[in-house]
């Protein structure tokens, strides 16, 4: 492998890794807040991608310009899911851990079926966007603009999540995470915080979905493969840790890119899984996890 190839592969891994990190950040946020692993996370991303496709198909509006709209849509979806299902799943007396796993899992199957019902099983793609087909040549390393824009937006969204954690709301979020019963005594509405947490988590994966739609096909099963990587990212980084999600996302992006080149593309996930298992042997709670 020449130095140029190595740089090119590393750049590809970096761009993909930032997307993985943002998908995982939403998952990690929800988990950190209320101990719930959202098994429908990939399906929320899939919904965002379909939203982009539908709006683009109807109006020709570029995915980039749809970003605020679709992110808001997903924020609302996240809140509705919390109010309609998760609040109930958290209130059961027995088997709470198992109930939340299978409630979100059932939701995932339902959304997948609904997507197939509405849009059929075939792949769709958004094309002729402002950025498609263009790339930036950085000293011999080609950076495709859709991927580059996606990673910049993901980084910005990550910064946004960190900024939110410094606001009054962020402090309420943190307090609720620390002790979900005590916060009621100081006038924090726990239910509202949880709903906002779901909104933010879904919004984050929505942003990732919008940017991904600029260069990736959309289909009813697109969420599943991304979701698997997202669970691995969160577990590798440590449940509840934002920094962990970022570091693990980047690590996974790189490992995947290099495994695809060194072994073969069909085995690229094996490298990721092997690194993940190896790290867990030494750090059973992930790189930065405390929970």
């Amino acid at each position, binding site marked *: 492998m020449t130095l140029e190839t190595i740089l090119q592969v590393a750049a590809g891994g970096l761009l993909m890794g930032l997307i993985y990190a943002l998908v995982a950040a939403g998952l990690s946020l929800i988990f950190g807040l209320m101990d719930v692993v959202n098994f429908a996370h990939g399906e929320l991303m899939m919904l965002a991608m379909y939203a982009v496709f539908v709006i683009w198909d109807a109006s020709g509006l570029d995915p980039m310009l749809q970003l605020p709209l679709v992110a808001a849509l997903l924020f609302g979806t996240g809140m509705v899911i919390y109010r309609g299902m998760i609040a109930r799943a958290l209130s059961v007396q027995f088997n709470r851990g198992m109930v939340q796993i299978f409630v979100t899992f059932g939701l995932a*199957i339902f959304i997948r079926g609904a997507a197939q019902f509405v849009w059929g099983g075939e792949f769709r793609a958004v094309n002729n966007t402002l950025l498609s087909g263009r790339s930036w040549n950085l000293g011999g390393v080609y950076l495709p603009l859709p991927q580059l824009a996606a990673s910049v937006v993901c980084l910005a969204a990550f910064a946004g999540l960190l900024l939110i954690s410094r606001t009054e709301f962020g402090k309420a979020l943190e307090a609720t995470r620390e002790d979900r019963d005590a916060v009621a005594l100081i006038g924090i509405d726990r239910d509202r915080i949880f709903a906002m947490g779901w909104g933010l988590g879904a919004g984050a994966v929505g942003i990732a979905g919008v940017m991904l739609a600029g260069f990736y096909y959309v289909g009813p099963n697109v969420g599943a493969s991304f979701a698997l990587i997202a669970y*691995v990212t969160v577990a590798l980084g440590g449940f509840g840790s934002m920094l962990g999600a970022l570091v693990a996302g980047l690590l996974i992006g790189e490992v995947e890119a290099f495994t695809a080149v060194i072994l073969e593309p069909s085995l690229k996930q094996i490298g990721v899984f092997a690194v993940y298992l190896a790290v867990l042997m030494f750090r059973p709670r992930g790189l930065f996890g405390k929970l």
Partner: protein
Amino acid sequence: MDNFITRRRRHELLVAAGLLVFAIVAPMFIKDVTTLNVIILSLLFAGLAQAWNILGGYCGQISLGHALYFGMGSYVSTLLYVHAAVPPSLGMFAAAAVGGLAALLVGWPCFRLSGHYYAIATVVVGEIGYLLFLNWDYVGGATGVYIPIARPSLLNLQFGKDKLPYLHLVLAFCAATWLAAWVIEGSRWFYAWRAVKDDVVAARSLGVNIFSSKMAAAAISGAFTGLGGAIYGLYVGYIDPDSVMAGHFSILIALPAVLGGVGTLWGPILGAALLIPMKELSSSYLGGSGRGVDLMLYGAMIVIVALAQPQGVVSLFRRRAHGPA
């Protein structure tokens, strides 16, 4: 001494024997192939869920990677038959051994993890197995393996077009898993595992060896799952990684136990009796259109049952048994 527990356990055994006789005889009067197929799959998944329940329910280790033991079981008995002419009636015990061994090998590193870390690690291990089998030419890779059709015989466990013998084979499997669970419920293990499930620190202070408890549960659970995989391979006659090792199989193995009642004796059977016919019927009547209605029904049912009966459908019966007559 005839205390409450021994009386209840004897009662359970009687009910099971009655159900077994009914399940042997009743299908003899069913001629419809589709119905027999649904019954066979329901019994198979009842047994698999019972096997999952030993690790996931009694011992509280939520494994989402049982497709690995299931798939390895079907591959072991099939490949032994195809490459070494070992009859499946013997091969399926090799499949059980391999399933149990695989569960021990997975458990050895993964049981250091707890909660969600354990669950996700099992998903990942299952996925690694799936990808490896998909890219491994000796086992047929993505093309899969056909089980050569032989003369119908008990040795080869092939019965041609006749479904009834398959039904009785699967019934025997289901009964064996139930009996294993029943024996476990009466043993010291049951209490040790429950302590591991409910409070690891307290269990350790009582002298329960956490790691070997989990390993014992995993070995039994994996062995029965491998056995079920071997039987499934025989029944469908063709296996490939997608049909026996894909991740959704792990969920399908766990789901009847969860919906029926985790950590209960009757939950897995009840859950499978509800879930599998619903799933099969909706996919054969609605799935053909390819419009995903069957998936929507399946998903909605999981959500509703999990929210409405968090202890599983079995709790409906229990409440009646203990409530005012």
